[in-house]
């Protein structure tokens, strides 16, 4: 569960990235977050992952109060989230398999558990044959799928994806969205940042639109109803 109450974020450069965001996402919801480039979408995600602290306001993520969270609790908070980054963030000298297994090691999973779960998840994203590849031996879209696999691996309460289909062709993008929808149906909360009007329009989900650091529309009509 996510709760943002009157959150603002001003960067050290003086940019007011967020100017009072109120947003509530219940467990099990599927939400698209849309908005122009520079409107503050990634900033919201960085706040949710405690990469950044809010300038003011309060943020609740899966029971952790992020505006006052202790440093030592941050890792445990992050384990409740599966994050897919805009720039993939794969470890370059580890294979695809290790990149995914790695997230399990971090939380102390046994080798047995790892050996069982990683191949399953790789198959889920269609990379069953690329486990031994290094990230830079993959196409952009394949890398994005590795990132998705890593986010799924620990069965997080919530998946947060920043442009998970930015580098995928329409068919693949649709597949990934179907995958996320399936995961959502199994009870995981999903929040997807995207620019792709086509995709958003094809799924009838809640859409939150952001502009200049404010929520300008929030509806269940399922349309990318924001036009620049």
């Amino acid at each position, binding site marked *: 569960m996510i709760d943002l109450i009157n959150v603002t974020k001003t960067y050290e450069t003086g940019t007011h990235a967020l100017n009072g965001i109120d947003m509530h996402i219940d467990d099990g919801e599927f939400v698209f977050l849309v908005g122009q480039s520079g409107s503050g979408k990634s900033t919201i995600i960085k706040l949710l992952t405690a990469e950044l602290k809010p300038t003011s306001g309060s943020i609740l993520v899966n029971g952790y109060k992020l505006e006052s969270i202790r440093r*030592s609790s941050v890792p445990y908070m*992050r384990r409740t989230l599966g994050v897919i*980054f805009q720039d993939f*963030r794969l470890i370059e000298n580890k294979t695809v398999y290790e990149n995914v297994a790695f997230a399990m090691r971090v939380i*102390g999973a*046994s080798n047995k558990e790892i050996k069982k779960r990683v191949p399953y998840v790789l198959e889920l994203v269609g990379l069953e044959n690329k486990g031994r590849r290094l990230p830079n031996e993959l196409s952009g879209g394949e890398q994005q799928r590795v990132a998705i696999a*890593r986010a799924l691996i620990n069965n997080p309460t919530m998946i947060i994806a920043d442009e998970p289909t930015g580098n995928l062709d329409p068919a693949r993008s649709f597949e990934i969205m179907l995958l996320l929808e399936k995961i959502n149906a199994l009870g995981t909360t999903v929040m997807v940042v995207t620019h792709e009007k086509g995709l958003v329009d094809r799924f009838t989900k809640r859409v939150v639109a952001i502009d200049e650091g404010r929520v300008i529309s929030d509806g269940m009509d399922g349309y990318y109803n924001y036009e620049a």
Partner: protein
Amino acid sequence: MKHNNFGYLLGEGFRAVFKHGFMSFAAICITVACLVIINSFSLICYNLNLTVDDVQKEMRIVVCIDENYTEAESKSVGSDINLLDNVENARFISREEALENFIGDSDASLFDGLNAQSMRDQFEITLVDNAKVEETKAELEKVVGVADVYADIEVGNALATIRTVLYIASIAIAAVLLVVSLIIISNTIRLAMMDRREEIAIMKMVGATNSFIRFPFFVEGFILGVFGAVLSFFIEWGLYEVIRKAILNTGLEVMKIVPFTEMLIPMAVICAVAGLFIGIFGSLMSIRRFLKV
């Protein structure tokens, strides 16, 4: 850190040593070089110390008694000398004995004209504390009946000075080289961390605790330090014995040189402590700096 992770993280640390092969090699080489130099100086100091002790143990003060004193009178002066604090023992040397000493191994015919009456009664004195030789010499000169006091303090003093200088130089060099080793290990770890900057950022994002992130780097530094220490110990051993034998072969008994095996345990302890210190602090230095950022 959970049990499951321990083996994995240990393995990561080990693997890192090989992955940063050149750097690890360099770090170990430098550590070994520094430790060998440090150890060499310790050994030189230790042996020189033995030599100085020897020389000082043999140090004697010779007191000549007024030539008009009879042997009995001279001997009574001896009891006065024995009263002095720093005098351990005063051995009486009669004029005859003094003459024999004087002629020594030389061609006796050379000294045909000499007889015992040319010499004076003497006392050969050993001291409690050789360092106070100057004061004792002054006291001896005040004793009634004492004509001259000869103390051959120069060689002992020179050696003692050399020893002091060597001590200070050794400590200075050891300190500098320990810091050099610390820095090189720390830099190796720093390099390893920079190399995995992104990896660390990603680890953090997927919920790794700081100790999970640190452990492999710590293992890496530890391995480097310990490996350097072990290597340096054996290299030192070999080097020392080669040099010892070379010196013994020259036949020059300039100084005492104990075999390495006599110092096996203290040397091993020094190496181990230095290696652990360098490895642990070297890596801690970098790990702290890095994770703070």
